[in-house]
């Protein structure tokens, strides 16, 4: 029995020693993301916000190293959460030495490694970033970002054939929404008996914007004029 206990303890210690340090893990993810100099991606944008009823819009997303990103409507009206375009994990992670990494262990259900990144730069837009990382695949599955100006955002990523570049097939962006209200004298609403006002449970629900990417064109060059 005593031997068995020692063996188990030894195994645990060895696995702990073999586990990647937070910095190593971040470096690996960073290296993966840095393979992408630019990309153009087509996607479908779905808005799920309590006061908006909108069809799924087609969008084109442009990215260029280090921090240029733009989401353009291909057709229709798309609702892009404020500040979302400026949140760029690749840029944030590449700022080596500009943040402290705190290991917060593993998420019990998913087993994802939790790392908290605290920027040392006082002017950084992101105040705190909590990353949920799939260690084996070296991919960020979830990120909670607290920003200086635009509240807290949550990003959930699903990966597919572009996982080698750290680019997701689907991103779900959760954010806090504010109340929408226009004066009745402007809208002259028709009272059709339907309840326009969301109930209190829905009122505090976070807004979600989902982008499902259909194709990426990676490292093919993106014109700077697009970002103007």
């Amino acid at each position, binding site marked *: 029995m005593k031997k068995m206990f020692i063996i188990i303890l030894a195994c645990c210690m060895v696995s702990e020693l073999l586990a990647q340090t937070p910095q190593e893990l971040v470096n690996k993810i960073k290296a993966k993301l840095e393979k992408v100099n630019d990309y153009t991606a087509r996607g479908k944008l779905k808005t799920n916000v309590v006061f908006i*009823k909108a069809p799924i819009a087609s969008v084109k997303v442009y990215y260029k190293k280090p921090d240029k990103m733009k989401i353009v409507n291909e057709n229709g009206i798309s609702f892009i959460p404020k500040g979302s375009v400026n949140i760029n994990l690749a840029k944030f992670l590449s700022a080596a030495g500009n943040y402290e990494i705190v290991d917060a262990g593993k998420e019990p259900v998913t087993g994802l490694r939790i790392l908290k990144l605290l920027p040392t730069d006082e002017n950084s837009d992101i105040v705190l970033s909590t990353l949920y990382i799939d260690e084996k695949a070296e991919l960020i599955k979830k990120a909670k970002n607290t920003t200086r100006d635009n509240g807290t955002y949550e990003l959930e990523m699903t990966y597919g054939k572009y996982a080698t570049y750290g680019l997701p097939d689907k991103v779900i962006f959760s954010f806090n929404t*504010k109340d929408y209200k226009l004066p009745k004298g402007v809208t002259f609403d*028709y009272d059709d008996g339907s309840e326009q006002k969301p109930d209190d449970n829905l009122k505090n629900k976070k807004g979600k914007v989902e982008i499902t990417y259909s194709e990426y064109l990676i490292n093919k060059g993106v014109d700077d004029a697009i970002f103007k």
Partner: protein
Amino acid sequence: MISLLKIEIFKIFKKPRTYIAFAVISLIIILIQIALKFGGKEYVGLMMSGMGDSFEEIPTKIVLNGYLVCFIILNLLLIHIPILVALVAGDAIAGEANMGTLRLIASKPVSRIQLLIVKFTASVIYTLMLLIWVAFLALIVSIALFGVNWLGVPRELQFNVMESDDVLWRYALAFCFAAIGLICVAALAFMLSVFSDNSIGPIVVTVCVIIVFTILTQLQIPFYDETIKPYLFTTHMLGWKGFFYVKAVDGVTQKGSIENLSAILKSAAVLIGYTAVFLGIAFWYFKRKNILS
């Protein structure tokens, strides 16, 4: 009957005041279109002001398209068009009495009921022509000037968006509904016209009724909302907007959906009911009327 109707239509379109309505409508619509063409950004800013804190600004050229411009025009105009309808419908019988020709017409070998049917039909034709003119200017010209894109409809607490190929049928139905509403107004003015020997009276009274009822419809006083408002025909005249209120699943607009079709049908039924009552009173009174002029 047909020849009598042709004469009545000829009489309507011979009067200069008939064209005042077309001229006024054209002027207002063109002024709105010019204003939106050069200062639409501010209007879109106001429209989207509720979500400015949560979302990136949507380019004005996408939001401000022909469909939205038409919606804005109808939103502003469908309160005022009834006043122009009253100009003609209120004059239908009272105008004849005023000119001293009513007795002459009534002595023709047509019944009084037939005479009223013809007179009212002529007013309806005028109303529909006015509406078609509005539809042409507000929808077709706006599409030519601003192009088409998805339509975003701002509501007090919601923002409804529909795809561009999901809009035209809504406008077709909205204009049909507007026709029902305007015919109701025409019936009111026509009824008042039967009671009067001077066309100014029915026109002014109709205009006053529309103004007072519209104010009561827009006032947000719970006492009126629960007691008077559901019974005012002006409340139901806004039913055309119901075709632009959509259903959604998980926030995604359901193509071809209408949020509450039964409410729109109910409003249409109320308007038709009012029209029937106004015409019934007009027929009942005119049959017994002692025509002296």
